[in-house]
């Protein structure tokens, strides 16, 4: 057991060290993803408390959070300089795609919200 906790501590430390090396813009995107997922979790807990009556509203709320998190991850993948596949993709184009997809997502959400 102590070896396991020791390993866990080492692991967490090395993770933290490696993560600290990522550029700031990627960290901002990560923060946004965490925020979106946290919002989704809060909504699920709230649904557990008060019941799911307007189910479409619940669905659209949760899926909008999850959707924007997923899109932010896609943006992060495309903007990440270490990613060789997206070397020729200008980050402005990646951001424009992100905005477009978010627009479509939220248009659908607003329609489905009821």
């Amino acid at each position, binding site marked *: 057991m102590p070896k396991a906790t020791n390993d866990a501590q080492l692991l967490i430390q090395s993770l933290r060290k490696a993560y600290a090396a990522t550029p700031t813009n990627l960290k901002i995107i990560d923060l946004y993803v965490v925020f979106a997922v946290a919002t989704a979790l809060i909504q699920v807990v709230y649904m557990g408390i008060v019941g799911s009556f307007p189910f*479409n509203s619940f669905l659209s709320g949760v899926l909008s959070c999850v959707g924007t998190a*997923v899109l932010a991850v896609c943006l992060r993948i495309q903007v990440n300089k270490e990613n060789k596949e997206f070397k020729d993709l200008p980050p402005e184009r990646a951001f424009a*795609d992100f905005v477009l997809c978010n627009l479509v997502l939220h248009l659908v959400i607003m329609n489905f919200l009821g």
Partner: protein
Amino acid sequence: MAEPAGGGALRNAFGGVLSIFILILIGVLAFSIRLFSVIKYESVIHEFDPYFNYRVTQFLTKNGIYDFWNWFDDRTWYPLGRVIGGTVYPGLTLTAGTMWWILNSLNIPLSVETVCVFTAPIFSANASWATYLLTKEVKGAGAGLTAAALLAMVPSYISRSVAGSYDNEAVAIFALIFTFYLYIKTLNTGSLFYATLNAIAYFYMVCSWGGYTFIINLIPMHVLLCIVTGRYSSRLYIAYAPLVVLGTLLAALVPVVGFNAVVTSEHFASFLVFIILHVVALVYYIKRILSPAMFKVAVTLVVTIGMAVCCAVIAILIALVASSPTKGWSGRSLSLLDPTYASKYIPIIASVSEHQPPTWPSYFMDINVLAFLVPAGIIACFLPLSDASSFVVLYLVTSVYFSGVMVRLMLVLAPAACITSGIALSEAFDVFTRSIKFQLPNLFSNSPSAGDNSSESSVSQDVVKNDNHRQVEKSETVPKVKGDNSRPTEKSEAVMKGKQSKKNRKKEKDLEEEDILKPKKERRLLVLPLEASAVAILLLIVLGGFYVVHCVWAAAEAYSAPSIVLTSHSHDGLHVFDDFREAYAWLRHNTDEDDKVASWWDYGYQTSAMANRTVIVDNNTWNNTHIATVGTAMSSPEKAAWEIFNSLDVKYVLVVFGGLVGYPSDDINKFLWMVRIGGGVFPHIKEPDYLRDGQYRIDAQATPTMLNCLMYKLSYYRFIEADGSGFDKVRRTEIGKKHFKLTHFEEAFTTHHWMVRIYKLKPPKNRIKGKWKKSKSSSKSSSKRNGATRKNPWQ
């Protein structure tokens, strides 16, 4: 370098223009091969289901979209009605309605019927272009053109999209191929823009057809396949994750799907793979930022903890799913997975002729030559294997399985077969034309390098097909023209220029490698002997010719019948049987607006659309008990049937009878299904009562129950007067009971060839002679009487 670059660009431009010209021709071909029924008969809507779609489109064009969305139809499934807005897939009607509206606002006054009739050919042209785009993403422009040409003509697709076949598949197949194209495009490029377009195309597919569940299960399967075979990449994430979220939302927007998009088992695969994909992505990310030693530690830690959590979650999930009797799957999906399910539990699904498994000859009839080009295409997809080609192989394999379960799903096999056959044909043509092109100058010049070429070709150890993206040039002749024949793509030209400088270095290195490691797999281009290639090209063209001839024959003879108008050729010319429309027109003009018409569910849509009368059951078959009620009434003796129909406010009963002219799809042939479905809900109807020694007969050997049932009486009433001997041309015997009177029904109308017979319910007499009857005749449930002798108050 300017000279060869200019020459290359010119050839490029010429190739591009030629491609566009070929695509336009393919579109025209796809459109015109489907016009046979319009030429042979008239511009009329075919079959049964299209009439419902036509009626809905009429309503949409007349009343606008908001009324359409909220439409509650009270003229069908009387007295239940049907919520059309919530139970119809709106894609087809909205598409046709939009086209009609655009044309009318441009002052081109086409009627709704014309637009409906020609929707399918237009969208099949679009489907061919979508196939071109999809195959181009997989293998290149040459394969794309071949696949598009094959799809334009494949009989299986023609059968559901002739002019007049105004059904969901007409637009749905186009949506299917287009969605797959956008998915592959996103997978190849990793662009979020195409991912958005993919989700929107998937939305169009969900609007159009119930078969959209095929897409939302095939794409997760492919993602899983890529992960398992180690082809995970960030492009895969971008292709799949936004599609799941956006796609689920968009699917939930369509009223007919609604919350099924998140609750039913058909969609669980997509969520499961979504979670798996995220786990895999996280693992790859951590692997990239950690050192290998730390990564090992992380793995062991996570595995031990994660296992426990996983088991708990899976246990909860299984408990949830197992608590529902069908494990959350709908009846139709279950009958696809287990082909014997429908015949055991849901006779209605089993009774539809389209839901039967296909016979072996039907494969050859429907995809013809493609049936043996497909395996060659599968092999071509493996050399080399890319994400896109693995998707095509997976699509083909799953659609072959499903087409084996239901004849109707041969339609989903058709695009897969065309794509793989297109790839195979294109590769074959590549090899042969390349052989000819490389050996033609040697033939004329007789240089010593001819000897090199033949030795190279005989040494080829493995069949290596040309790959447009990666080539290692080995032959020493003709340095300018690389591997491509007269259909270059822009990509390969660019690759060519880049590889030219590397070519020399690689050549020396590879020559050394070849000497050292003989059996190592080398990427060399296959060159066959000149005469063999020429003969092979000729044979392939002849094969294509056979295919074309067969497709045109199938389109003209087999699949162009509107089935509402029948023709037959006899010694004195062409007979046209227009009995159905005659009967519906009679109903329309000779009955009251609110009269209810009862018939078997096959004719419900046509009656609603053409006769404009309220029907009891129609082809939607959503309410099994209601259909069983009608089936019981048809199987009961006259009095009991009268009671049932009277309780449903029915005024007219419509029966289809083919005995006089030999029309085989009449109600007497379908009668056993009425008995089975009725017996499934009302146990006093037993199928063995209608069979003599297990055989279904209507002659003198038939059982008394059979001879007394309503269907028999309504079909054969006064039949003896028609041809003197009561000889039924379909069953090929004389009928059993020849002279009888109808007690509770009177004949209202019989069409010219006796194919449709309409009867009116006699009103009850005012006074009932005899004893006062205790049992009420107003019982709404079916009568329990089974023909026991009682005093008949109507005689």
